């Protein structure tokens, strides 16, 4: 493996993504995830968070999207031309938005599909399975249920567990809070934090739930219209006046009603 700076674990360099040869979605996005870090990718609908993650995991092809400029590297090696299976072998796994469990497979079968690319034998896979069950005790009790009939939270856990079965070093986690009760969201983020500190898995986390994301992440990037408009430590971001105003729904006087927001100000855009 070539030499690389640990701060350049996953490095996205000025990428541009075009869908269907015409729709320009990412207009030069650059970001870095350091080894062992949790980096949040924030922004509204259509800002380009999911596209960024899919560009990394290289599943854009099936949606007729294409990375037309820039480069993506992982541990110092270019990965933008690798197919998804090759990427999983190298330790980069995506957990898609909306869970995407295999609905007709049982929870345990779902988890086992995550180990598809592994060649280190049954015993090792069994051990990983136990580890996943230790992180998500709920899944152990539901191991033989059909995944499609489990609750949203359990499906999200299954999806994360399935990614873990590949023994990843980097998980691209897309909108884990989607459609889940706040309590479950907390539970899942706690586990993410745990995985990060104990299993040394780095996370690139796309989230709309800015408050929760900034609480668990070390660093954050804010995307608007396919550009990074702001980045910084999670702490400094959550204290930034603009972020508070536009993403946290707060102002100097504290929480405020949506009615009081001046709409022309809400349309303000930062220029990159």
């Amino acid at each position, binding site marked *: 493996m070539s030499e690389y700076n640990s701060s350049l674990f996953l490095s996205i360099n000025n990428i541009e993504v075009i869908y269907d040869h015409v729709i320009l979605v990412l207009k030069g996005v650059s970001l870095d995830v350091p080894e062992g870090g949790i980096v949040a990718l924030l922004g509204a609908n259509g800002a380009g968070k999911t596209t960024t993650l899919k560009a990394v*995991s290289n599943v854009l092809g*099936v*949606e007729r999207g294409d990375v037309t400029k820039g480069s993506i590297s992982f541990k110092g090696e270019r990965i933008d031309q690798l197919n998804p299976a090759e990427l999983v072998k190298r330790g980069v796994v995506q957990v*898609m938005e909306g869970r*995407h469990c*295999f609905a007709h497979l049982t929870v345990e*079968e779902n988890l086992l599909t995550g180990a598809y690319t592994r060649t280190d034998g049954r015993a090792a896979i069994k051990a990983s399975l136990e580890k996943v069950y230790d992180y998500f005790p709920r899944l152990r009790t539901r191991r033989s249920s059909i995944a499609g009939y489990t609750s949203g939270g359990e499906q999200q856990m299954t999806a994360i567990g399935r990614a873990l079965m590949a023994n990843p070093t980097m998980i691209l986690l897309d909108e884990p809070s989607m459609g889940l009760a706040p309590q479950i969201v907390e539970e899942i983020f706690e586990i993410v934090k745990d995985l990060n500190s104990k299993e040394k898995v780095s996370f690139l986390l796309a989230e709309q739930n800015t408050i929760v994301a900034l609480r668990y992440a070390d660093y954050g990037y804010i995307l608007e219209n396919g550009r990074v408009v702001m980045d910084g430590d999670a702490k400094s971001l959550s204290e930034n006046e603009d972020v508070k105003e536009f993403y946290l729904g707060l102002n100097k006087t504290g929480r405020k009603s949506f009615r009081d927001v001046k709409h022309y100000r809400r349309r303000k855009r930062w220029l990159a």
Partner: protein
Amino acid sequence: MSFFFEVLISGLLAGVMYSLVALGFVLIYKASGVLNFAQGSMVLFAALTFVSLLEKGWNFWAVLVVTLLAMLVLAIVIERVVLRPLVNQPQITLFMATIGVSFFLEGFAQALWGTEVHGLELGIPDKPFEFMGMMISQFDIVAAGLSGVLVASLALFFSKTRIGRALRAVADDHQAALTVGIPLQTIWVIVWSVAGLVALVAGLLWGSRLGVQFSLTLITLKALPVLILGGFTSVPGAIVGGLIIGGSEKLAEVYVGPYVGGAIEDWFPYMFAMLFLLVRPEGLFGEKRIERV
């Protein structure tokens, strides 16, 4: 009473032959969620290739191996040319593509090997023998045994192996399968190859009974009620569906037929399947649609 059983058994055995064709559909449906319209053409292509090579005086086993290789190459070509560019497209698009494949295969097979009817002799005598006072065809028994083995091994393959699991995963969600590192392309080649193998077995058995000719593609029509009954996604369902269709159509023909002027064998399965759809649209063993509400 012994006459009843004789009719029933001959029907069941014929049903197993329907199951063989239905099995090819199930395989591809399970792995891509698409009804493979080209299954009948694959049966024709396999049987025609086999019989033409055999007529050139080749050794039986050599012909078998070469035909299997041909089906493998066919699977690879279909994946490359048809499926790969259509990944993640709506199922109706893929379905239309299989119609295209079907026309191409029919034309290609006949351009390559000609359109005459070939006789095929597998060396299994099609003579009835007596068993507990009933006359049973030896050929039917062999065909049933072969299908039974095929179905049992495929059912095991789907439920127990890593690749079988991956196949089912792909059927559920292409994109998610990609993200966990399941190589879609490989999976599709595997599944189309296995469907090709099943098509070859079906083609040989049906071909030796009816002669290898264009009308072999039509036996796929009988597979449809079998699929509706057994469920599109179930390997054991294909066999059970085949047994029910085969048995019931023969019994209906013999016992109900005379009252309505006969020849109900041809349409009875479709009526039966239609009524069944009203009661249980996913079939006996098919996967229920899972929807979140």
